[in-house]
């Protein structure tokens, strides 16, 4: 299990055992407009993937692509319009349709982008970490909970833990606060952490520290991470697999390094060509496609990228193509590949 970033992890188990988390055909439409003129914003359309123990899966895309909504659906902060969320092969939406059970919330935790907004300003760090421990009954006495808090702080790299526990959020830097948020998620020993842009609001010099902490937790504790980001380079750095989202659809998915070496979907190609990459030579290739993500309110049928795509055909305007596997663990949804 001791692998460096760069090595691909083979799937353990395989036949017979259900994956830790599986999402099938997840859809979320938000109603917008007035009741007399009801419209729907198609935020997430038919998203399916698998996330196993000790795996980091990245969900990348531009703002408005539906990546955060996907994470919030899995965290059960929103009720999906359609689709299934399977934990250990059991459909949790059937068992607990409206609200997630305490057990589900223990196993699936979420950390948010803004470490300044996600912590209570008037409680000490120790108290904020103690609460989930007591609520989820992981410790039976206050003293035992306190000991657990110290261990959590140490795991998250907040030293010395006794001192950190007495501090308030305003006394901490952004990076330290995000570590507290991670420690709080860890307090209930989750199996999955949904990390929504966990480093994008942090100062650049401390971002790697937080990413490396996530990597350590994946390696040593076997936690599965869904890593939501707009930064492809960081997805390539930490994620085993990367999914590219556009206008609510996952358009391409593959093993991270391979996907970014060999992008096939025209949108993935566009996205990668726009990532600043000084090492590839200064002022590199031109961006080929102008324009921005289309409106998601009652969108027309067909591929959402078609209006910007240089290769668009008639079929692209009519239907969204099905998944096409082009090599091992690498698939995409594009009519260019549907005929082959």
């Amino acid at each position, binding site marked *: 299990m001791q692998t*460096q*970033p*760069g090595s691909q992890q083979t799937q353990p188990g395989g036949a017979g055992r259900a994956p830790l988390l599986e999402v099938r055909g997840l859809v979320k439409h938000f109603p917008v407009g007035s009741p007399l003129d009801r419209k729907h914003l198609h935020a997430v359309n038919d998203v399916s993937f698998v996330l196993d123990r000790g795996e980091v899966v990245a969900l990348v895309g*531009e*703002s408005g692509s539906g990546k955060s909504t996907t994470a919030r659906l899995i965290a059960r902060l929103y009720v999906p319009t359609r689709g299934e969320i399977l934990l250990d092969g059991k459909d949790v939406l059937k068992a607990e349709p409206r609200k997630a059970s305490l057990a589900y919330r223990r196993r699936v935790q979420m950390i948010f982008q803004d470490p300044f907004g996600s912590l209570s300003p008037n409680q000490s760090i120790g108290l904020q970490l103690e609460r989930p421990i007591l609520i989820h009954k992981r410790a039976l006495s206050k003293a035992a909970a306190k000991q657990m808090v110290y261990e959590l702080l140490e795991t998250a790299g907040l030293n010395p833990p006794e001192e950190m526990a007495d501090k308030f959020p305003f006394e901490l*830097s952004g*990076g*330290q606060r995000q570590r507290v948020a991670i420690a709080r998620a860890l307090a209930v020993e989750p199996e999955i952490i949904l990390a929504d842009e966990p480093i994008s609001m942090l*100062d*650049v*010099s*401390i*971002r*790697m*520290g937080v990413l*490396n902490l996530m990597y350590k937790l994946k390696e040593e504790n076997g936690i599965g991470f869904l890593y939501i980001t*707009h930064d*492809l*380079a*960081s997805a*390539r*750095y930490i994620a085993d697999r990367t999914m590219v989202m556009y206008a609510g659809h996952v358009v391409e998915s593959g093993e991270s*390094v391979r996907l*970014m*070496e060999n992008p096939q979907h025209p949108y993935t190609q*566009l*996205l*990668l*060509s*726009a*990532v*600043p*990459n*000084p*090492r*590839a030579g*200064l*002022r*590199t290739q*031109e*961006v080929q*496609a*102008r324009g*921005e993500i289309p409106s998601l309110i009652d969108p027309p049928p067909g591929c959402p990228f078609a209006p910007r795509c240089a290769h668009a055909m008639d079929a692209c305007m009519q239907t969204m193509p099905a998944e096409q596997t082009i090599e091992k663990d690498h698939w995409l949804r594009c009519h260019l590949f549907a005929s082959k």
Partner: protein
Amino acid sequence: MEKSVEPVLDIRDLYVEYLTDRGPVRAVEGVSFAIQPGEVFGLAGESACGKSTIAHSILRVLRPPAVITGGQILYKGSDVLKMEGSTIEGFRWAEVSMVFQSAMNSLNPVVKIEHQLTDVLMKHLGVDRSEARKRAEELMDVVNIDKQRLAAYPHELSGGMRQRVVIAIALALKPSLMIMDEPTTALDVVVQKDILQQINQLKKEYGFSILFITHDLSLMVEFSDRIGIMYAGQLVELAPAGKILSEPLHPYTKGLLSSFPSITGARAKLSGIPGAPPNLLDPPIGCRFKPRCAEWEGLEMEKSPRLREVAPGHMVACPCNFPGEASGVN
């Protein structure tokens, strides 16, 4: 080489302090650099390192409690800090314009795009409304937006389009220097690349210089000619963009570079920089980067190291010795 052409902007030993209740915060300390005509000069560093304070100082739009406590800012030879009343008003925008951070939200939400453009033109050029309207249409052409959109309100445009409008306003008076403070930070990468390419094209046509400010070092290396790296209010390294990437000298620059994973090549473990930037109310004595420095050799200094030239065009402020140098400590 620096003497042959007069720089557009020459900042000499600039000091800026924020006078807070808890004492002065030295936001900018002894910063000097010059920008040549047609050059893109990048100023990189983390939040609160003083880069935006420098930008605001150049236009003299610092708000209290910030005060400039020392140094000179020379624009084509004349001292901006000594300009008064009407001189400074004529200088702002006509000579130096600025695209602010989150500029796309700096448009007035209840005024049509047309009037936001024509107001600037009428005020500064003294032209009438129809002439201003004609110029506004030309400007929309320049930044690749359909003229029809002049009738739109800001909320009717996408983020990328609003940013283009702000750039059009900044270009309106054909300034010699454009300050761009995190111009594309709030935008998606595809739009970011598109806008930066367009600015590059405009720069070639109009020949203005750019002071480009961002925390994104990858983007900066791609876009700038020369780069200054700032840490805790001080300039710690200054070199051509390629050199910053290939031969960084200051340990902070090296740390910053190792904070950006690459999109190509082998996947290697990156360390970032341990610790966090210092509190400027009480900065470390001597070298401000010392507590986070991996290469610190135990040398204590009373004063911060000064910027010195260690190779042609390559300056660094670090007490360490570098190869090819006689003595490091000044």
